[in-house]
């Protein structure tokens, strides 16, 4: 269902019979950016747009119905994430959840200290919040990763200090799929009495999230929910204070009018998605294994990146030497494959991905394939069939002979 067929009929031909027809079957392989809307989310969204439009903070019937829908959605999402409903807030995005989680914890724990620990491969929302904290006079320690993109729990523990107000570690990396040792890091943070924020945007709904965190963030569009819905969970007894002007919404945690239809759709999507991933996850993981195994056999001078075992089920990244990432993406798009890249030429900053830099792996010619639910094996086979030709053509056009 995520295969789009584009037909181009020869121009000026009134009759398609006998005229040249170009058929490009498009396969979407960029689930790590966003998952196509789940049918359960669409249905829930349409229903809630009609039934959950009222202001959930008022006292009349329509309002009570909207509030009930919002709280039900909250309880359903909390249950999947392993949280209590009263710990769970809806935000406008995963990024906003991270910003509020990081800055609100630092704000509340100023007297403990102004030191923040993050991994080098966090999502930009974490790193940008850390940058703001640094510009505001705070201190930031960035913990490096190994060649697979994984944090060493001992090194992470060594970065913790008596004045550390917060530590942040993603559940899994968004660019290379490597799972982080969240349980181990949570344990050392607990022993040091330092709250740990886990950015679970890439794994929520796809893989179990280890416990032990103090704050958890996620984003609904990554699990087939609608855009504009993030989740911020703040555990009981975690000190947190909004870094933003006061607002009474979402228990004073998130400002602005609640997106009730979005929250309802996000909850429906998460439940459906998680149930499907229990079945479909292993199948997608096998397709990823196929790509991981075949790509180095099909092509010279290519490196598959990220942990081969401790990884997200649906994501694989590789770098092809001597090829420009943007050119490869454009060529794959022309051939009907929508993928992403961490190469600098594909970023508006013209810098290579900070994740690839931190891992010390080739940053050019980078391709990230992330399979949405229901990806057909035939589309992966077709991808593997066209990839070598695409890379070889680009290498030849760049004058690479070997």
């Amino acid at each position, binding site marked *: 269902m995520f295969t789009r067929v584009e037909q181009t009929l020869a121009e000026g031909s009134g009759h398609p019979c006998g005229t040249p027809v170009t058929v490009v079957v498009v396969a979407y392989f960029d689930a790590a950016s966003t998952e196509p809307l789940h049918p359960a989310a669409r249905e829930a969204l349409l229903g809630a747009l009609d039934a959950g439009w009222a202001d959930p903070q008022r006292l009349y019937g329509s309002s009570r119905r909207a509030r009930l829908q919002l709280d039900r959605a909250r309880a359903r999402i909390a249950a999947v994430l392993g949280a209590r409903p009263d710990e769970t807030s809806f935000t406008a995005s995963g990024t906003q959840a991270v910003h509020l989680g990081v800055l609100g914890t630092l704000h509340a724990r100023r007297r403990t200290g102004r030191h923040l620990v993050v991994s080098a491969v966090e999502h930009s929302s974490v790193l940008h919040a850390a*940058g703001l904290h640094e510009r505001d006079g705070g201190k930031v320690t960035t913990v490096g990763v190994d060649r697979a993109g994984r944090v060493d729990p001992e090194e992470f523990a060594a970065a913790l200090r008596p004045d550390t107000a917060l530590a942040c570690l993603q559940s899994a990396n968004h660019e290379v799929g490597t799972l982080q040792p969240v349980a181990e890091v949570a344990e050392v943070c607990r022993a040091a009495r330092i709250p740990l924020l886990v950015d679970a945007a890439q794994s929520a709904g796809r893989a179990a999230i280890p416990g032990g965190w103090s704050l958890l963030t996620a984003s609904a569009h990554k699990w087939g929910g609608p855009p504009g819905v993030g989740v911020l969970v703040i555990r009981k007894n975690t000190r947190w204070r909004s870094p933003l002007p006061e607002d009474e919404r979402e228990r004073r945690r998130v400002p602005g009018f609640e997106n009730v239809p979005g929250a309802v759709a996000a909850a429906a999507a998460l439940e459906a998605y998680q149930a499907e991933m229990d079945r479909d996850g292993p199948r997608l993981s096998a397709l990823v294994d196929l790509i991981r195994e075949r790509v180095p056999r099909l092509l010279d001078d290519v490196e598959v990146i990220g942990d081969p075992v401790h990884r997200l089920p649906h994501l694989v990244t590789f770098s092809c*030497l001597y090829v*420009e990432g943007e050119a490869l993406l454009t060529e794959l798009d022309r051939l009907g494959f929508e993928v992403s890249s961490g190469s600098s030429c594909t970023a508006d900053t013209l810098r290579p991905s900070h994740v690839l830099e931190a891992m*010390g792996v080739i940053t050019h010619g980078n391709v990230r394939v992330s399979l949405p639910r229901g990806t057909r094996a035939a589309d992966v086979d077709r991808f593997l069939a066209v990839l070598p030709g695409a890379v070889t053509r680009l290498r030849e056009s760049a004058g690479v002979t070997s």
Partner: protein
Amino acid sequence: MGLKRRRAGREASTKAPLEAPPVSTGPAPLLTIDALGRKCPIPIIMLAERIGEVPVGQVIAVQADDVAARTDVPAWCRMKSQDFVWEETLPCGWSFHIRRTY
């Protein structure tokens, strides 16, 4: 602008994937490739093409100002089993020194 400053600050505290440039300069390169102003992967392509011009055991240098080269040159050396010697800071970029191993 703020973004640039943040990145600079973060880099300073990040555990570098490659060890900090050694103070020792090592042997002078036998051949220096000028890839200044060229974007990756061009500096890497030039390096791969021309490393054969120095004898095994000798050093070749590639000058580049695309920041991606700081990651890509050592990573290329690792992939191709060449010996990355050190990274020299130039006024407008870097010079990467590589010893040919085969």
